[in-house]
């Protein structure tokens, strides 16, 4: 058992050096069996969303005064951001910030916040 474990570990290390993305996929598959995220960095949705947390609270759980994003439906979040981006919803600041994100990034962030516990 011990030998097998250490052999497995050394394979991981080898992969880690040679094929960084493969390593990420390895962990995703070995741990959950879910499909690998279709992004360059599997944590891209998390990383993008973290930018919003400065105002909207860690993981989108607001302490008040700013809308919480955690647990909102993905479709709603995408629509709200796209409305800001297109200037359809008046706002103080979100119209200006929404224009800084691509449609794909908005999708990833919306999906991530939708999956968080409010």
């Amino acid at each position: 058992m011990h030998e097998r474990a250490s052999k497995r570990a050394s394979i991981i290390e080898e992969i880690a050096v040679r094929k960084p993305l493969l390593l990420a996929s390895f962990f995703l598959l070995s741990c959950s069996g879910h499909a690998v995220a279709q992004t360059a960095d599997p944590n891209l949705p998390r990383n993008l969303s973290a930018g919003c947390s400065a105002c909207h609270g860690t993981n989108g759980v607001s302490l008040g005064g700013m809308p919480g994003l955690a647990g909102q439906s993905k479709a709603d979040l995408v629509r709200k951001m796209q409305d800001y981006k297109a200037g359809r919803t008046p706002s103080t600041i979100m119209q200006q910030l929404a224009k800084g994100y691509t449609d794909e990034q908005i999708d990833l962030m919306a999906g991530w916040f939708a999956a968080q516990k409010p």
Partner: protein
Amino acid sequence: MPMQRREFLKALGATGIAASALGGCASAARGGPKVVVVGGGYGGATVAKYLHMWSNGALDVTLVEANPAFVSCPLSNLVLGGSKQLADITVSYDGLVKRGVKVIFATATAIDTERGLVRLSSGRELRYDRAVLSPGIDFLYDQVPGLNNAVAQEKVLHAWKAGPQTVALRRQLEAMPDGGVYAISIPRAPYRCPPGPYERACQVAWYFKQAKPRSKVLILDGNEDVTSKKGLFMKAWNEDYKGIVEYRPNHVLIDVDVATMTLKFETADDVKASVLNVIPPHRAGAIAAQAGVITANNRWCEVDFLTFESIKVPKIHVLGDAIQAAPLMPKSGHMANQHGKVAAAAILNAFAGVAPNPTPVLNNTCYSFMSDKDVAHVCSVHQYDKEKKTLVTVPGSGGVSPAANAVEGEYAFAWAKNIWADALT
């Protein structure tokens, strides 16, 4: 450290690499890789929290901070205006301690980059696999010779690091007789918090308008023009604070005569005032110089914007006001918070042997108080440009408020509440 790395990889496989999808198979590892964060401001507190949170506690994270509590620079001008007290902008480090971050109250005096050690004022040494420096700024008093001693620095304050100086400057303003002049000297850009000095002028004027209506605020700017939110500040000075605030550009300070309370400039005439508030030019905090990561103009630290790792010293990351910023990236607390998150993600990837996220996005939001409740913002979004290898603002995005307003006053306080919790709990 191959064993340690393997253990960490196991834990990280369940957390850092796929936190959202795979929370269930996490296991906290003891004795994981060590990260020492120096400086617990907006950048340092955030990176410490996010390293701990995103690794599910698998990383051994230590935060070294000189002060017993976090005191926010944003909102500190309200203490000068008198609508807030220092306690309102002070947050304990207990939230980070409760989370599992080791917080050590000490000054980091040296980084041994060869051996991977942070040396503390107490003599203690902390081993690190990666270190993050979020050291803030130090003042270049040699450029203002009259202030280059402790006695002068007690009389002519900067109050550009929130804390005791903020309270002391407020006392000076309270003690000033009506009819006096408060003069603020602004260094040439880049400096910490571009709109901060102009907001401060508004806050002091707001106080004078109520308590000392014959007094004046004199802004002596080392820059050619107002560097941030120009139209919004000019409107406040010309309307709300007409007759109180006077703005003078092109005032590059070269010396201060503390005995006669006189400011001396490169070209402009001398100015005497009852209260002098000099923000000297600054550079990255001392520990950055000691660690050898200051690489730009002998003042700032250049970093790789995918990781915030020093371009010169491996395994040392630098955040916040200390860095040589990307174009149009302000030195702000909000920006430092964003630096911390990019760095945290990159450090976790590095420990797992994974390349950093190639497409980081950062945003900035900065609210300025024109009065105790009317506020205007400036905001921007910065995406990584792989050809230019820097962060660039997205054309058409960002901007400022059309006018200062009370709705954004509410948002500014909500911003503070949320970002303090984002960094410190």
